[in-house]
């Protein structure tokens, strides 16, 4: 199944939206943490694992998902949240720790939840897999539609949870897809040094599930591969491991100088947003003017979102004590 023109333009819009959002976050992030760089300072405090470079992994997969499907995102969740359609304003506000954010400031960058989008996060790598598989199990038990997809990096496949959950996904034939965004680095450790096989998708055979590797960080190729996994999950064919070759343009986290990456590798990095735009224009799917219009519209949307975050109030200190327990019963 290949994407049609509308789907391709939609994917392009998604990756632009994620990129423009992250560009503004990056700009604001570094604006007020000097002269001595301090993670805890400024409008957007804490670690930020930006999605620069990872955008196609979300755009090419999420386009197949429906409202009743469930997503558990990773510690690098912006592109996953943006492509799922979360509101940029509430997202920006959460990153700033504002009361109007998705979690009223309790979650932050690595803990974004929107129940309306069936979207949650785990900042601990690979540990979003269990909850996603659990939702898939619940849907299967209740004979309800809806599949579940977890996102993580390639280094997360070396966590125990990966083995445990994939094995159970195989046993129970869950409508579940494990999307692995292979950026070749687990913080500073190269995939070759951390992983005994070249492709984590090859591990699928150990769990009796389907596995596929997608090269090129290209929305179209990801779209096609994800279509196969989704069809399998919706049709009762069980789980998949979809590993996608991607890359980090800004390192593990903002402020990472990437001294451990060779010059050659850094110079060879391409920009997936630039490339996809050129590809769609070259094959006549959209014109330069159309692409510019998409970017302009998204920029405006991001401006509004960022301003919303800036203008929003902080929570009261004592709000920290609210909501530890639901306190209700069936």
């Amino acid at each position, binding site marked *: 199944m290949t994407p049609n023109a509308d789907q391709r333009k939609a994917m392009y819009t998604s990756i632009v939206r994620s990129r423009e959002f992250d560009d503004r976050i990056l700009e604001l992030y570094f604006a007020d943490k000097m002269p001595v760089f301090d993670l805890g300072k400024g409008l957007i405090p804490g670690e930020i694992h930006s999605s620069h470079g990872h955008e196609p992994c979300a755009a090419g997969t999420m386009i197949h998902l429906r409202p009743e499907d469930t997503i558990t995102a990773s510690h690098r969740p912006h592109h996953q949240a943006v492509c799922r359609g979360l509101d940029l304003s509430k997202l920006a506000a959460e990153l700033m720790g504002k009361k109007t954010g998705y979690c009223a400031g309790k979650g932050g960058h690595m803990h974004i939840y929107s129940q309306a989008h069936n979207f949650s996060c785990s900042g601990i790598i690979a540990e979003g897999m269990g909850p996603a598989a659990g*939702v898939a*199990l619940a849907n299967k038990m209740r004979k309800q539609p809806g599949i579940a997809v977890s996102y993580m990096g390639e280094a997360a496949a070396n966590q125990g949870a990966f083995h445990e959950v994939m094995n159970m996904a195989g046993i129970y034939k869950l409508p579940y897809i494990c999307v692995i965004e292979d950026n070749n680095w687990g913080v500073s450790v190269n995939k070759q040094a951390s992983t005994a096989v070249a492709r984590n998708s090859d591990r699928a055979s150990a769990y009796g599930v389907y596995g596929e590797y997608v090269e090129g960080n290209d929305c179209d190729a990801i779209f096609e591969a994800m279509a196969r996994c989704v069809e399998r999950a919706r049709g009762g064919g069980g789980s998949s491991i979809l590993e996608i070759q991607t890359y980090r343009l800004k390192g593990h986290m903002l402020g990472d100088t990437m001294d451990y990456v060779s010059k050659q590798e850094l110079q060879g990095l391409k920009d997936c947003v630039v490339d996809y735009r050129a590809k769609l224009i070259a094959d006549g799917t959209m014109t330069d003017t159309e692409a510019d219009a998409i970017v302009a519209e998204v920029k405006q949307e991001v401006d509004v979102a960022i301003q919303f975050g800036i203008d929003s109030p902080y929570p009261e200190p004592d709000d920290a004590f609210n909501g530890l*327990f639901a306190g209700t019963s069936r």
Partner: protein
Amino acid sequence: MSSERILTVARAGREAVMWEMKNDPSVFMLGEDVFTFGGVFGTADGLGEMFGAERILDTPISETGFIGIATGAAMAGMRPIVELAFIDFIGVCFNAIANLAAKHQYLSNGQVKIPMVLMLGAGGGYNNGAQHSQYLLSTLAHMPGMVIVAPSNAYDAKGLMHSAIRSDDFVVYVGQKKVAGIGLLGSPIKTSMAAVPDEPYTIPFGEARVVQEGTDITFVGVSWTVHQCIQAAERLQKQYGLSVEIIDPRTIVPLDREAIFKSVSKTGRLLVADEDYQDFGFTGEVIAGVVERDPTILKSPPIRVANPNVNIPFSRPMEQRVLPTADRIFEATVALLNL
């Protein structure tokens, strides 16, 4: 027509599980050895036959996996009951417990609920060695985001299980293995057996029970140590005419600090007995809760009877030495009061 039977803790808890499973299709059980084996400690005895493999789901030995999966099922509105045979195993799934199940409700600002019960078998005293005998209740209670219940008797076991399953929060249900009254571990402790109504009933979290009233000293125990307190109190009454009040908090989180304070206000003395490691644990927490509120109400120093912070040795004389037995409670009280 209502009738009451005398049940063991395990039977009473299982009765609540059965009722909830019959009446709510969203309740299901998953964990180790539940389907045919009925759980290592009998908590799921016969449920496999009754409800089938889809609702009594055997899992591989993959604790972080199946607790994560249960968390997801709960997020989707199911009410999973997870069987983790030994509390000692929390070491291999602490992330799923503490970073997933216990955090989603709070981090999501209440958008996500985790109506899940985690059943744990805990405690020693039957020569099972250091990795299958721990109580570890305070390790869990130290982390925010979990309700923790620890019934000492059959009546509470059933009521608290109903409350746990119906709760929209993550509840850890700690079953003390010797209190459970199951096969493999000898005769049930008499004071753990209780009259249990046929009908379902709930017990609110955070409400202690006064096991017996007294005027000279307050004993606070948890599950198995409640019975050690009862035995020690009997001997103290018989030999010295001492009047002991015994409080069973029943739920550790939330803790009924009010009931404990009220009792100590009356008796002026406090002994806390706990099977867990003493340092940084439940016993110190209970004492702090009293003296923080009013340091003047104690007529004598508070006493902690717990595991004296050593790993639990296998050999009988050594294990018995480190358990918070009725003998240790008795002796500590005698020494305190110069009886």
